[in-house]
């Protein structure tokens, strides 16, 4: 069979994998942003106990590989009586990992707001909540956009690791096909193109977004 036929034949399967990769990434990114925002707020307001827990979570999560986290969820947790299916494991794992990266991104933005801004706010008598609401968050969120954008791309790429727990996303589909038909060139080419189709447009959009929000930065 010619390469072209191989590609045409496996296109529907790849499409399925592609859609699953997109879908898992999407849920993972949304979940990570929510978890990350909560953690960074707990840290910002120094909520007793909870902020400590957030700090520990962030350090554990960002200093261990997703693959090991997934193995833990998928193979070790059932022994304790929690059994999740592979896709749920993947999503939980991705959010567990992404939450800490997003938390770091938000916190970095909040910390990056210049001292003069914060001190000026205090000087005109803003309460801690007002300071956060009107001074730190609007500027900090803008400052955190580049980090959040980089994290999104990182998380999409990380979904390729789901192949180890046999979630039929794009990488898994390609590796399965290679295993069955030994046509590594064609399938790998499709795989690389598949990721490029997601990541190139996204990174262009994010670059434009970063430029746009920079107009909003102030006092730096």
């Amino acid at each position, binding site marked *: 069979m010619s390469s072209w036929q191989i590609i045409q034949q496996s296109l529907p399967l790849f499409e399925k994998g592609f859609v699953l990769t997109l879908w898992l990434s999407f849920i993972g990114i949304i979940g990570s942003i929510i978890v990350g925002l909560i953690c960074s707020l707990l840290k910002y307001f120094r909520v007793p106990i909870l902020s400590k827990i957030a700090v520990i979570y962030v*350090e*554990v999560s*960002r*200093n*261990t*590989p*997703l*693959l*090991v*986290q997934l*193995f*833990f969820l998928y*193979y*070790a947790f059932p*022994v*304790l009586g929690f059994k999740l299916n592979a896709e749920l494991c993947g999503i939980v794992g991705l959010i567990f990992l992404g939450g800490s990266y997003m938390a770091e991104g938000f916190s970095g933005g909040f*910390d990056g707001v*210049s*001292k003069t801004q914060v001190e000026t706010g205090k000087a005109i008598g803003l309460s801690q909540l007002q300071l956060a609401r009107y001074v730190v968050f609007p500027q900090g969120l803008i400052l955190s956009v580049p980090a959040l954008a980089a994290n999104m*791309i990182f998380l999409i*790429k*990380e*979904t*390729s*690791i789901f*192949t*180890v727990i046999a979630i039929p996303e794009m*990488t898994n589909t*390609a*590796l399965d096909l*290679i295993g069955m038909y030994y046509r*590594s*060139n064609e399938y*790998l080419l499709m*795989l*690389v193109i598949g*990721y*490029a189709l997601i*990541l*190139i447009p996204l*990174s262009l959009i994010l670059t434009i977004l970063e430029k746009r929000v920079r107009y909003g930065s102030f006092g730096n």
Partner: protein
Amino acid sequence: MAHSGINVLFEGRNLIRLFGGLWTTVEIAGVALILGLLLGIVLGVLRTFPNRLLRLVLRLYLEFFRITPTVVLLFLFYYILPRQLGVNLPANQMAMLAFALWTSAEMSDIVRGALISVPKHQRESGMAIGLNRWQLYRYVLIPQAVSLELPATVNLVTRVIKTTSVLMLISVMDVINVGQQVVEANNQKFPTGVFWVYGMIFVMYFAIDYPLSWWAKRLDKKRLERANG
């Protein structure tokens, strides 16, 4: 009699085997980092040169590694090198090569970023006192760039170490692969052993990466304090 799962770690040579696997992981990460960081510095410096073609090629090199997940990259090397280019390397060395090139791409961007954020007057003063290009980089730009790039470089190191976890996919006998074998061999005797073996691997990765990322954070804080006064 029920066995407590944690004993799986102390059964026979299990713990020694796990540490052996960890050593393979560290070795591959170490070689890849040394080669990758050095190559990355060279590429990063080249990316600040005025030659447009050179810059375009290096930019494409970076973008290729940026949009390709490491798992995919590893498989590209695994299948393409032997079949298309006739290069037959053991899996370990292939992994070192793939990781080194990936590291060099990421590093080139860090170095370039640091070099172009050295204030312009520094470069111009250097040229005004008659330094040639080599001297300009050697005495003015690179020393100042190092302090700017160090936190990002340390973070890259932690990322590379974490990413070595995907080595098991191309059947390198790294710590995770060894862990899997230990789990399978002891499944009958220690049904909850899987928890402890993967727990141990989790702790191993954390023990290597946490001090590094802590250091990176401290460096970054110092840098910000210097910058903001």
